[in-house]
């Protein structure tokens, strides 16, 4: 189990517990459950890399305590 920090820099900062085997889509669902924003509207980024829904967290090599940028579309 790892913890990922998601920050939208607009007032929301989440610390989410998940598994490296979870996909980005799953992560987005978890985020939406916590914030109330629809999962489809969330864009997760790290610099200019937009994370795709069907790829797992482990494959992106996102580790424990790493932070992602959160945008809305």
């Amino acid at each position, binding site marked *: *189990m790892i913890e990922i920090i998601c920050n939208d820099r607009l007032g929301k*900062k*989440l610390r*989410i517990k998940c598994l490296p*085997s979870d996909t980005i889509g799953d992560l987005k669902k978890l985020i939406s459950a916590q914030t109330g924003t629809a999962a489809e509207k969330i864009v997760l980024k790290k610099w200019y890399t937009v994370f795709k829904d069907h790829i797992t967290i482990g494959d992106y090599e996102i580790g*424990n305590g790493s932070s992602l940028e959160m945008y809305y579309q």
Partner: protein
Amino acid sequence: MPEEQSLSIEETNKLRISLGLKPLPVESPSDSNANKGDADDDTGFDADERRAVANWQKRQDELEKASFRAHQREEIRKAKDAAKRFAKLEGTGLGDEPVDGEEDAVEWVKRMKKRQKKIAKKMAEELAARDAAAQRVEYTEKDVRGLKVAHAEEEFIEAGAGGQSMVLTLKDATIDELEEEGDELENVELGEKERLQKRLELKKKKPVYSAYEEDVDENGERKLLGQYDEEIDPKKGRKKFTLGGAFSGATMAGERGAESAEARREAVKEKLKLSAISLDIEKQELASDYHDLSTVKVKKQKKKKPRSTRRKGGDDDALAPAPTEVIDESAMELDDTPAPASGPKRTLDEVTFVDDEELQNSLTLQRRLALKKRKVASRPEDIARRFKEEAEAAAGVGIKQEEDDDEEPGLIIDETTEFVSNLRAPLPTERRPKRQRSTTPSKTAMASDSEPEDEEGDVDMDRGLHQLEESEDLAQRIKRESSGPEDITSTGLSSEQTLTRGIGATLAMLNQRGLLQRNPESETLLSLHRSREKFQAEKRLNALSFEKRARVQREADRKSGIFEKMSAKEREEYARWENKQRDIAEAKEMERRFKEYKPAVKLEYKDEFGREMNAKEAFKYLSHQFHGKGSGKAKTEKRLKRIDEERKREAKSALQGTGEEGMVGGLREKGKMKGQAGVRLM
């Protein structure tokens, strides 16, 4: 800075289950403690990391242990080495006191002495052995047998007599010389002496050539420029002998001294004999101006056979008997036949096709029979001739019919021969007999007595046939020729007949015969022209019809009384409107027509006289107009004159045949233009 929102694991798990995800592994505090050591079963929070740390620790420990072991091993080795080093120094040294008095200085000296004695004994033994070996290998006469000595034997003998001993050494030589001659022995003193002698000789500068001295060496052989012998072949002049040779016994050991002396004396005597001077006065021989006949050898010239020359002129010439040949009986018999045979054979070559195979075959058969009848020729010429004739007969190539007729006594006349004889191109009748007569003499000469009549008769018959045929041919030809012009109409004269029927008919006929070919370009041009004409005619007709219609309409309007109700202005307005409508209709009609219109554009420039100008003239004309400046007076006059002449020529009657002008002149001009002598009318 906003607060971080975070859910607990339980809450997250609830959420995850609701979303259909795998719940997070929950680590209970008791479990985590229990399972801390067991890394494999550890499924708690950051278990992977812990596992990794444990792993790393393990690895680190292992490394440490290994290094520690290596270090220990090194230590052990060092300790062992040190122990070994000190082990060597064990025992009593020279400076140490003897431990149990086993060896003191006196004893040591004794030992040393004993040892020295032993060594000396050994050395002595060795020396003795070597001496024995040396004694065993004695250097004797045998060993030097076969060696060459580079001096004369006499010198050794002299030295021996003088009681001197000679020391011989191996001579200095290059490798080449060694390979060539082998080892050579030499006494240094003697060699030196010889060299000195030679040098002194050279210093004397004796004249090389003496006119009266005969150049004879000690062996009595005559020499040619003997002074160079040594330089050419250095071995030649040198005296040398081999040990163990004929003289060796005497020279080396000196045992058989008396005998050797005898032999030597003999040798000296021999030599003296050779170089003895005869005291007799030699007879002087006068040199003769002439060669001695006995010494002269005359070379006999071989008789050349006169070669029979072969002329290249003809094969028959080659067969003619040579003048030197002996004439025998068979030749006599044959003599009359071959000479005339050459005549017709030359003519054979002129015609190179076989007229009748059957005939040829029969002829060859007959010839062979005739040859068989002849005697067997003894001379090769005859045989050759016969072979040649046979070959010709067999080949059957290039044999004229007439000649065949002559040789054949029984000529068979059948349809094929007749046909073939008549196949020849018809010749003028008056020339034919002449040629026949010219050929006949040779034939008659060749033929036997009975043949001429036959032949003559044959030829006559032949000729008669030919003449008959030819007369027929002539008649036909004349007929054909007379009838020909009617059909062809290719000449100007004959066209008059057809012209009576009309030009259209003539043209149609020419077309039919393919004499008149239409140019496709001109065809298209013509069609275009026609269509344009048609278009213009239609246009004119259309305009007329429109006009007519308009008039009718106007009349109708007037009659209907529309105008009466209108004022003058209104009337005018109405009329204008009507006109406009009509114009529009007409324009529309024209537009429709113009869609089919294909204009044939042809630019034509006419000058002030209405003449057509060619491109060059037109350009000049336009250029003058554009610049507002014409050509000068002389040029203008020239041009005017030319135009005048042209007009005059055109004005003259076309049919006036006299002079340059008229139809004939025109034709001539045209011919000149085309580079032809005449002009084809059709």
